[in-house]
């Protein structure tokens, strides 16, 4: 059996991980791990994990980490950063924890330009609890609590988080949307987000479009199609705000 090359900042005793087959989290966490290695910040990096599928990453890294409460990852890492500014604090959450119950914290942290890095994995549903509708569920998408398809007349249109965060933040914040279908770009955006904190500039936020074949009930081909054709159409990928020069796609 071939042992794959893994980032140094990964915690090997917790592998193989517990994410479902086809889940995008594994790709995001690999990009994160490589970014941490390349920037050489393993010892300074501390993670906060939301409750949801994100929590399955609680012992993923060989970095200090804490579980928080559902939706409360942002304030925990804000508190940590304000008391220990030399740490690189990273909040890791899903679209439910970030844009729903955690939205007020996200908004306010952005307004205050908190010097934390938040990675939000968007798979358009509440995964861990069984596939309920989420703020980023697409119009017409069927979920456990939109069994007949999301009706935007009833429940609005999908939340575009990086867009509102870009509006709320000053110019030295970093705001981007990546996708697990474009790995190199994903890693570059994550690196930039972390770099923004390392330099002490301001708020850094990356939403990552990701896959959930378990709750989407899709096979491999259908999963990629939904991500690349539907999600990436609704949620434009790219850097919305960056202090590092023109946003690269």
């Amino acid at each position, binding site marked *: 059996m071939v042992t794959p090359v893994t980032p140094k900042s990964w915690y090997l005793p917790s592998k193989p991980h517990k*994410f479902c087959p086809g889940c995008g989290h594994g790709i995001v966490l690999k990009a994160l791990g490589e970014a941490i290695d390349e920037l050489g910040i393993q010892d300074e990096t501390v993670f906060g994990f939301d409750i949801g599928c994100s929590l*399955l990453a609680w012992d993923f890294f060989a970095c200090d980490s804490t579980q928080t409460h559902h939706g409360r990852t942002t304030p925990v890492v804000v508190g940590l950063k304000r008391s220990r500014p030399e740490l690189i604090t990273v909040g890791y959450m899903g679209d439910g924890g970030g844009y729903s119950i955690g939205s007020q914290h996200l908004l306010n942290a952005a307004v205050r330009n908190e010097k934390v890095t938040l990675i939000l994995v968007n798979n358009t549903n509440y995964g861990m609890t069984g596939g309920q509708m989420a703020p980023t569920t697409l119009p017409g998408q069927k979920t456990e609590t939109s069994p007949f398809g999301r009706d935007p007349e009833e429940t609005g249109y999908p939340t575009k988080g990086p867009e509102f965060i870009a509006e709320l933040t000053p110019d030295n914040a970093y705001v981007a949307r990546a996708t697990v279908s474009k790995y190199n770009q994903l890693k570059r955006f994550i690196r930039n987000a972390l770099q923004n904190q390392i330099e002490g500039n301001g708020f850094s936020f990356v939403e990552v479009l990701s896959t959930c074949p378990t709750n989407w009930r899709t096979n491999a081909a259908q999963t990629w199609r939904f991500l690349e054709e539907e999600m990436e159409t609704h949620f434009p990928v790219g850097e919305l705000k960056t202090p590092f020069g023109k946003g690269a796609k």
Partner: protein
Amino acid sequence: MSLVRIALAGEGGQGVQSVAEIIAEAAYNEDKQTIYIPNFGLEQRGGVSIAFIQVSNEKIGAPKFDKAEVVVALSERAVGRTAHYSDSKTLFVYDEGFKVDDQDLPKEFRKIIGIPAIATANEELHPRVFNIIIMGAVIGLTNVVSFETAKAALENKLGYKFEKDPNLRELNYKALEIGKKMAEESLKEGVDKNV
């Protein structure tokens, strides 16, 4: 009929919960008292899936139990995970193809039974009906429901699949029969380990 407690355990995707639900439904259809409850902690993702079934003529008490009349482990990992449900009255069943450390087997049991369910499924039927063979075995060991009611419950749950492919019906019923026979044979033989 006095209380029969059954614990089924296996990997996610093996159909442990489906089989348990069908058995419980069959018992319900015979107007028996029955409770079915899955384990549903976080370990469900990537952990052993366990189903707890109780059937009785009397009202049933607590939904969980510490010892069972029959324990069936559908995967190697499930053996160690369920050994503690076995006491001197328990029939502890697993697939005879498993490689199991002695220390993972129960210390107390009435009989430890290895049945060739996986091999039979793979060679004679179809890998997918392995769990239906197990279902047949459970019925053969406990007689919690009649074979007819079991078939009807199976039809009820999987009928929609059988409509698309009638061969599946044949296959599943055969698996059920084979499992039941395996169980009845094993009750005569079985491996009696000396404690």
